[in-house]
């Protein structure tokens, strides 16, 4: 998995231009997140993609060509902190199941956000791998709904873009 971080103009239609480019050039992305940055007029898009180096290079170059894209960096995973948030709603009727889920959650440093009569919602923050691992672990309890944010990332140390 590669992580691409793009600073873009914070204005309407920019997300459309970026996703339109991915469709037009047949780039199959894993996730994309968009949010405000330290500058009110810029947003950061974090894109993850599973591909070969050549596709990655093209994606970065094509992104840079977009007028509303101000900067594009391919992040080196070893020198990057990256996290994803997942909300997982599971079926948990009997006390044993609830205990077991709570135990797993604490091992994964996840939080229980909601407990209802028949369901539990767990919040988990981590790398996509960690979230996948937790999902596989609790799958048999019956996942009712799952929402993942996609990856947000920043390079370590004094690197600015």
């Amino acid at each position, binding site marked *: 998995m590669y992580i691409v971080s793009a600073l*873009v*103009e914070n204005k309407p*239609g920019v997300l*459309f*231009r970026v996703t*339109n*480019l991915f469709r*037009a050039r047949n780039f199959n992305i894993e996730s994309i997140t968009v949010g405000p940055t330290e500058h009110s007029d810029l947003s950061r898009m974090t894109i993850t993609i599973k591909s070969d180096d*050549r596709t990655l*290079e*093209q994606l970065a*170059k*094509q992104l*840079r*060509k*977009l*007028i*509303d*894209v*101000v*900067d594009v960096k391919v992040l080196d995973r070893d020198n990057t902190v990256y996290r994803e948030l997942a909300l997982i709603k599971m079926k948990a009727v009997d006390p044993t199941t609830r205990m077991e889920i709570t135990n797993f959650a604490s091992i994964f440093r996840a939080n229980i956000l909601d407990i209802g009569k028949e369901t539990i919602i767990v919040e988990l923050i981590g790398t996509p791998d960690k979230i996948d691992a937790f999902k596989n672990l609790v799958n048999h309890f019956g996942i009712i709904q799952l929402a993942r944010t996609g990856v947000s990332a920043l390079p370590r140390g004094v690197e600015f873009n």
Partner: protein
Amino acid sequence: MVEMTGAKALITALEKEGVDVVFGLPGGANLPIYDALVDASFRHILVRHEQSASHMADGYARIKRKAGVCFATSGPGATNLITGIATASADSSPMIAVTGQVQLSMIGKDAFQETDIIGVANPCTKYAFQPVTASEIPESVKKAFYIAESGRPGPVLIDIPKDVQQATADMKFPDLIKVRGYNPILDADLSELGHAAEILVKAERPIIMGGGGVILSGAFSELQALAELLMAPVVTTFKGKGSFPENHPLALGPIGMHGHAEANKIIQEADCIVAVGARFSDRSVGRFDEFGKGMNIIHMDVDPAEIGKNKSVDVAVVGDVKSSLRTLVKMLSKKIIKKSGDNPWLKRKKELIDHYTESIRDYPRDLTAKKALKKLRELLPANAIATTEVGQCQMWASLHFDVISPGTFFSSTGLGTMGFGFPASIGAKAARPGVPVVDIAGDGSFNMTENSLAVSVLDNLPVIVFLMNNYMLGMVAQWQRTFYKRRYMGVHQHNCPDYAKLAEAYGAQGVKAQSINELDKAIRSALKSEVATVIDIPIDPEEDVYPFVAPGTGLKDMITGA
């Protein structure tokens, strides 16, 4: 600061950009713009279909080497422009398309003649945007021209809601503009150029491949200087046809699907290819994996995204090719003494030309596309401008019409838009009224925009439609003949219409030329005519275009005849 309406600000901003003509058609959502146009200092040319407006603006741009401008109303007016915008995008032609839009409060309400034209245009423009206040218009126009004309040129669309056109504001017209997400690279990295020079000094069989970027950058003399210094044969892509004089002793013409046989052959024997402003399109190089295998490839282009897109290369020189070539020639002239013309590589070139001149048989008729085009070239002055329709006529032009003066030929090479040539020739005539302009046409393609005859006649832009007429969608017919066992479907035009009469109906001149002698007379008469001339030249529907590199195959698989 001056107070005026958004529409007036648009016209004023266009005047400040030095616009001398716009091509367009009015409608409900751009009426304020047309009202402001009454007092404009530039000319408005009324088209009969918006597709032609965008092709005319494109043709104008390719000759003037600055952005052509077209206007359309919202909805269908705007969508009709799209084919021409996509054509300009595929061929990196600078264009400003200004569309009217329904008023801001109606956007998203599925109003009458409302289309999300920004959404439609996004994939086929360099930029498409919508000013939402009148005061943004001067800066929007400045930005549009800057983006359209700089770096790798392309079309920009400005969509202006009707109430924004009508609103009044204090206008400030900027002289300069900076766009923070847009910084075209103009000066190439010197170390990459040095690397390129080292490879070229050692190359024994260098070849230059001139692309459309040479024409866009106007790097004609620089390309010629490089070729003559290296004594390297020059092939071109089809888009690059005319980047190098085709009567030059080093010229071999276009490579590709219907490239010149000797050009397709020699490029396979080179040890080093210098691709200048070319993008290694499938139509030019055949199979990406086979092309240039084992050779050193030097790729010079203004667009960094072209490097490695279709073809991995050894040296990438990113920057404006005119300045890159100039620096490269300077570097090389210190390192090499001008090579003599008497070397094995140039002998091989001559051998190939002789071989194919002898072995490729002409189609056995008195009047063929080849003979007609040779006659046309013979009678046209070197500075005449030629463009083409799309199909067999286009490929025959590529093969048999030599471009002598660089930059006097263009065609819809990337998108392959039928209907392009005729309106584009009118745009070219508007850009350079003093020289003859010819649309090398086929009947199928001419059909699509032939109503531009009205524009040519009424706006006094006389061009020559050199109509090679087989009453066929000839290229499709050729493929059906070659790949579908002659099972013809949807290709016959059944002797309809009578093109000479059609021309006359519009007040143009229509001539039928049934023999080379009649054609000679017709061309001479067309060159003297004050109105457009359609020369209807009967072509045998079985006359195919050869050589042919079938799709999905490599240049080595070229077929030179039936």
